[in-house]
């Protein structure tokens, strides 16, 4: 086959949902055997474009050519038949099935006996060719996420994928696992597979891709050869203006301990320990970052500190007062703010309007309600002033929360939790699914709150975020704190600790 014919060619793709334009005249050309990065903020249209290429969505106009031939992809089955595979951010695996069962699931011509034999030999071949080693009998739920992702990739290749789309593949990986993934991707590209990497982590784009396409507001704003560009340029292209990727953090002497936790243990319904003997201190005017791969107890730590789950043992003190047995409302009253990890399931009520969401947790407080009635006018006015202060767009207190963008939803939550100067602020994944502009804003506000003397406990799976904001970094693995590091520690050291390897520093 002629190498000058691109593997994927999208021409003038247009797609609208109602009155919103998701893709406008988008061109994307990907050379065979290359790794092509697709970057852009949330809502820039990357996912829509990839769903069109994977057949999940039909474009309103435009053409798709694969290996030079025009195709119509009516559904994912069409796309798979044309050699396109997709690894979703959230894995599409059956947790209780084995690796082999997952491969066979829905695979064409997979009659149980013959299919299984073919799948086994194919697995062996993939292991030999690309280093994609995995035991066919392993049950998915027993595998670490890095290996689950490998199963997803194998599944796509098993179905004959020549073009592999990966959507935010490193969100759940340690830096070492991510490096391993990139080595595999390089190997696949070397064998002539074509890879499209959708991500918002610019460093990864720079380190692994050959070319990169930047999208903004549904359109392609730039295409670059990766080695001729850098992170700063890509970030500016994505946002449409210069951005500060790292906030300046002034050195500051922390004050007295605000939060003191010792011996904190949380168990689940089956007596498995989710938190093992956690001890930590957060002082006034200090940000303590909790680094770790998602699902290593960070969520439970935040929930236990906020009063949402009851610990099996241990003590939590706030400014010397034992608050272990207090419920969430009583802890709020004592000045604990909480920006929860999942703004759509906890931080906000998507079906309520913004003004109603800004009183969540404070609905019984004097400024929100009298003996009987809510102070609607005062709530509305306060919401509006907070929206202006936190640059929430549109600044409409009567708009349903679900209709704001992710960044603006998060700003609404941040405004509510930070406006009252909490003594202690618990922060979970403050910038997950948030655009760069809002990330910059939220980081600045968190640092300002710290400088004003609040104690902040920050949980994030984004190492850049942890390192940029924290005065101290604690690393969690398997429900325990496995080490403490200064903020300038390098990613390798952090990564080894996160993986549970290496001695505490």
């Amino acid at each position, binding site marked *: 086959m002629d190498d000058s014919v691109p593997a994927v060619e999208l021409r003038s793709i247009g797609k609208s949902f109602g009155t919103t334009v998701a893709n406008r005249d988008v061109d994307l050309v990907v050379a065979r055997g290359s790794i092509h990065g697709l970057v852009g903020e949330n809502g820039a249209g990357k996912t829509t474009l990839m769903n069109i290429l994977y057949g999940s969505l039909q474009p309103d106009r435009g053409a798709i050519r694969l290996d030079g031939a025009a195709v119509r992809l009516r559904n994912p089955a069409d796309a798979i038949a044309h050699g396109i595979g997709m690894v979703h951010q959230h894995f599409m695996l059956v947790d209780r099935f084995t690796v082999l069962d997952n491969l066979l699931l829905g695979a064409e011509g997979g009659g149980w006996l013959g299919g299984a034999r073919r799948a086994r030999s194919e697995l062996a071949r993939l292991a030999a060719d690309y280093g994609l080693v995995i035991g066919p009998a392993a049950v998915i739920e027993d595998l670490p996420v890095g290996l689950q992702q490998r199963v997803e990739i194998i599944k796509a290749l098993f179905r004959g994928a020549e073009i592999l789309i990966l959507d935010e593949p490193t969100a759940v990986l340690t830096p070492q696992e991510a490096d391993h993934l990139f080595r595999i991707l390089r190997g696949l590209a070397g064998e002539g597979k074509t890879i499209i990497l959708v991500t918002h982590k610019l460093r990864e784009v720079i380190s692994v891709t050959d070319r990169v396409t930047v999208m903004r507001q549904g359109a392609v704003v730039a295409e670059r050869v990766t080695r001729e560009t850098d992170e700063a340029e890509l970030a500016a292209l994505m946002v449409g203006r210069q951005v500060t990727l790292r906030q300046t953090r002034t050195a500051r002497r922390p004050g007295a301990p605000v939060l003191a936790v010792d011996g904190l243990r949380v168990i689940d319904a089956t007596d498995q320990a989710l938190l093992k003997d956690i001890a930590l201190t957060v002082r006034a005017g200090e940000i303590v970052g909790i680094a770790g791969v998602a699902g290593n107890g960070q969520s439970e730590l935040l929930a236990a500190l906020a009063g949402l789950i009851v610990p099996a043992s241990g003590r939590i003190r706030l400014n010397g007062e034992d608050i272990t047995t207090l419920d969430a409302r009583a802890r709020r009253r004592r000045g604990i703010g909480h920006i929860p990890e999942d703004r759509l*399931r906890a931080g*906000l009520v998507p079906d309520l309007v913004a003004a109603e969401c800004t009183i969540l*947790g404070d609905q*019984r407080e004097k400024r929100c309600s009298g003996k009987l*009635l809510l102070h609607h006018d005062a709530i509305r006015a306060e919401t509006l002033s907070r929206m202006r202060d936190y640059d929430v767009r549109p600044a409409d207190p009567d708009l349903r929360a679900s209709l704001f963008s992710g960044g603006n939803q998060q700003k609404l939550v941040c405004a509510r939790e930070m406006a009252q100067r909490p003594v202690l602020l618990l922060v979970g994944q403050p910038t997950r699914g948030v655009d760069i502009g809002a990330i910059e804003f939220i980081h600045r506000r968190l640092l300002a709150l710290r400088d004003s003397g609040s104690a902040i406990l920050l949980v994030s799976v984004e190492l850049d975020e942890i390192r940029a904001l924290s005065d101290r970094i604690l690393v969690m693995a398997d429900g325990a704190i496995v080490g403490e590091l200064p903020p300038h520690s390098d990613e390798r050291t952090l990564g080894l600790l996160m993986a549970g390897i290496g001695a505490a520093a």
Partner: protein
Amino acid sequence: MTAPLPAWAEYALLPLANLVAALALSGLVVLAVGQDPLAALAILVEGAIGSQEGIGFTLYYATTFIFTGLAVAIPFHAGLFNIGGEGQATLGGIGVTLVCLPLGGAPLWLVLPLALVAAMGFGAAWALIPAWLQARRGSHIVITTIMFNFIAATLLTWLLVDVLIAPGQSTPESSTFATAIWLPTMQAMLGALGIAVSATPLNLAFFIALAAGALVWLFIWHTPFGYEIRVAGLSEGAARYGGISVERVIVLALCLGGACAGLAAINDVMGAHHRLLLNFTAGAGFIGIAVALMGRNHPLGIVLAAILFGALYQGGSELSFEMPKLQRELVIVIEGLIILFCGALENLFRRPLGRLLAMAASITKTWPS
């Protein structure tokens, strides 16, 4: 992804579209029975609102349906489906009777507040047990409230056969209350103002129902308790995060619903029958489900839907008179279809309507003015 409809479309156009669809399908049923659907519709409308009597009966039925509709709507805002309106109304009737029988000699201004408290208290108490079981034990509210309807019916039968039966009577009914504590009828109230209307069972309870609707509106949308109920109903995670006790919300919302259902007895037992009868609720608790669904759980919508169902009920009995081939059961068919379209198929017209409105909006926008 569907964009939300504007409020007027959500609360007026959509229910109207569902109603029209249900009526059209009912028309086919009438046709299948071999009758003229348009003639049937004319009789139905004429019977319901064609005369003072018709209107009186329509509003009398509507009064009960407002109460039982509110009984479904309040728990619904907490994410709970209260199927127990029938049983809670039955208990309300027992409460009203226990106040009215011994206090026959007392003045109405004293008895009425006591009867209201008894109706609400008995209705709420009947809801408390399923609510507590749901909150503490996770027993599903739909199952338990349905079961409690049967227990309530059995309890009423026992009371009327063995305890409250009027002395020397052979039918299971209580004695008639003293006339001094009958709720004033609309005829009497309007007569006092010099307006003459036909005699119907419509009574003071109609205004109590409207007041209850207004109070429920105030409670749900303007108090922190109503706010907590709505948050818990929409997102349990957000409720727990916001320090709201979901268990308490469950108990509060369901008991308030039970209290509303209990009030239905004020209309039927104290306002119309003036005694406790077997099965005086006559399925009103279940019609309340349809009323709440159609009224989209908003008190204003519930009042309107209750009047519609009152009209169907009243017009339906006219219909079975005029067209003997169409029995009262046809009204149940129509009710069933309305529940089907407003409840189970509520999204059937949502998308097309949304698309239509978006199209209309884009046309008017691009229209040169």
